[in-house]
């Protein structure tokens, strides 16, 4: 569906480039839920921006290849390269940002925002037809029709996020990207929206890419999971395999540090902090915090390779 080869995307700052995404190779498959985990500043949101071909200054694609192959309804395949993807926003690829007030236009009713998103494909005269389709789609998602005549501020946070999900999926895009789509929402609402997203994915058989810092969310919804650390993907594999047999010491310690209800065993955090992306270390980027650090880790960058079946890791231990 989408292939990234050694992609580097940096933010230009007065102090030099911040290497937010630094050499990421990733294939995103058809009909899967792929989730990207990592802490703040690890580059996971930047990676999604790269996928969405949305790189406003100071973010810039330094090198690498992005290739999207999108199956068309007529059986043909549409091949898109970097900087071509944006022409197919909404139609083939859509983006759900973190739950926020600022994504919907605050002075326009939701109905108009649907027309704008579906714009171009429908001539003016077809509004009534389009409205019917929108209403039936909202009904499918169990959203009340009244949201169409509301302004964004009149909706609750959860409802607003549902409207955004509805907008993003209305055109049945082949790829849906979600950057922390449920962060800052209450748990009950969060579960509702995640359930809605995965149900839509199953119906449409498309690709859903979700970024989250919440490991529980990953466990609940994703088929495959990528762990990012300091601008690089350090581990990628089936979600169950990652939770039960994490290979990279970062993933392993991160999962072990999570408290669980019903289990009071002592947990410990990972000491230290991630390196600065202005001047990352030459070898492995986790080297300073790693309990298994060896000499080679400080000298050489570990290669990202397939170690077990469909399970990739970048660590000198393997």
């Amino acid at each position, binding site marked *: 569906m989408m292939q990234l080869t050694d992609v580097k995307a940096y933010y230009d700052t007065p102090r030099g480039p911040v290497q937010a995404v630094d050499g990421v190779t990733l294939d995103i498959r058809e009909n899967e839920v792929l989730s990207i985990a990592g*802490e*703040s500043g690890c580059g996971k949101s930047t990676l999604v921006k790269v996928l969405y071909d949305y790189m406003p200054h100071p973010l810039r694609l330094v090198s690498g290849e992005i290739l999207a192959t999108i199956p068309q309804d007529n059986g043909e395949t549409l091949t898109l390269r970097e900087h071509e993807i944006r022409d197919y926003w909404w139609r083939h690829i859509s983006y759900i940002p973190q739950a926020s007030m600022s994504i919907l236009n605050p002075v326009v009713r939701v109905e108009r925002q649907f027309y704008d998103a579906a714009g171009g494909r429908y001539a003016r005269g077809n509004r009534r037809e389009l409205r019917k389709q929108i209403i039936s789609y909202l009904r499918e998602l169990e959203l009340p029709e009244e949201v169409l005549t509301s302004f964004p501020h009149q909706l*609750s*946070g*959860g*409802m607003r996020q549902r409207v955004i999900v509805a907008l993003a999926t209305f055109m049945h895009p082949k790829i849906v990207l979600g950057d922390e789509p449920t962060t800052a929402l*209450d*748990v*009950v*609402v*969060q*579960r*509702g929206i*995640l*359930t809605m997203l995965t149900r839509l994915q199953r119906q449409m058989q498309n690709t859903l890419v979700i970024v989250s*810092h*919440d*490991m*529980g*969310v990953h*466990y*609940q919804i994703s088929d495959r999971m990528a762990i990012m650390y300091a601008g690089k993907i350090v581990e990628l594999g089936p979600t169950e395999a990652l*939770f039960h047999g994490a290979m990279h010491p*970062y993933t392993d*310690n*991160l*999962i072990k*540090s*999570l*408290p*669980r*209800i*019903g289990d*009071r065993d*002592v*947990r*410990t*955090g*990972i*000491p230290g*902090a*991630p390196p600065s992306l202005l001047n990352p270390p030459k070898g492995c980027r986790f080297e300073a915090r790693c309990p298994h650090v060896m000499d080679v880790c400080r000298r050489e960058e570990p290669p990202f390779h397939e170690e077990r079946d469909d399970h990739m890791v970048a660590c000198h231990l393997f």
Partner: protein
Amino acid sequence: MSDKLLEVTNLSKLYKIGGLVIGSLLAAVDAVDISMPGDRATILSVVGESGSGKTTLARMMLRLVDPTSGTIQLEGRDIYKGGFRDRDFKAAVQPIFQNPFESFSIHRHVDAYLYDTARNFGIAKNRKEAQTVVAEVLESVGLDMNRVAGKYNSQFSGGELQRIAVARALITRPKLIVADEPVAMIDASLRMNVINLFKRLQDEFNVNLIYITHDLSTAYYVSDHIAVMYRGSIVEYGPSNEILTEPAHPYTELLLDSVSKIGEKWRDDVPLPDVEIKEYGAKACKFAERCRYVKDICRRLKPPMVSIDEERRSLCFRPVDYQEQQVS
């Protein structure tokens, strides 16, 4: 009652919302009772979703917001009317806030805040004494003086800054720390360093903690008791291992079902009444419209606070078979 560290009785805070003339009152905190024992240090978690009133409750306990009615007593003295001097109160009850990057100015060295606290509270008489005090508290949160001295907040991770905030709070040797979402902004790999620190403060320094959070799993991990808040009321209270393994209140049950747990996938058949609904009158259960066990009586009458066992309470008609109760 003076053997209790903290005794909150029938505490309410009403906010006026809406226009000058009509407007209505919103009970951000609605007749809350909480107590913390004085004989040993405990950690109490207050959990709830946004808008449940947990932050307003914390701010009242810190004397940052005046309650509309009800009392808060610290070791038997009313914190508002008991003649507490500002400095004495602040020495006894210390806050920790959500965003450690906002707790410290970007224009000052972070250790300046520690020196200020030591001097302002009369803990240290001169700079030299202050230095000893600061070094001591930093050590107790696992940080080194050399790591902190003369640095700005951008030179620390969120977890380190939050530990410095804890160190600052410790200078006055407080009896109680009120921490409002202290780890919400901290990355998962560093979060446990702060949470474990709270446990250590309890065990080693005998510091009580009120831990305000929306995260059930850290609340379970760290606390002795949990109070679950919903729309201003405490709907369930009890020992944390009981509350989160066998919830008594339907709201606690719903929260637990919604948490994205690891190792246990969500079942598809759980109904999710998460669509927000209009407020019911004060004379009913606030949770009635979302409750999966709702009966007619819940929409007519205020539910009673029922004691389930010695330590547990639930604000619900269900444990009393939906029978009308004598209001006690």
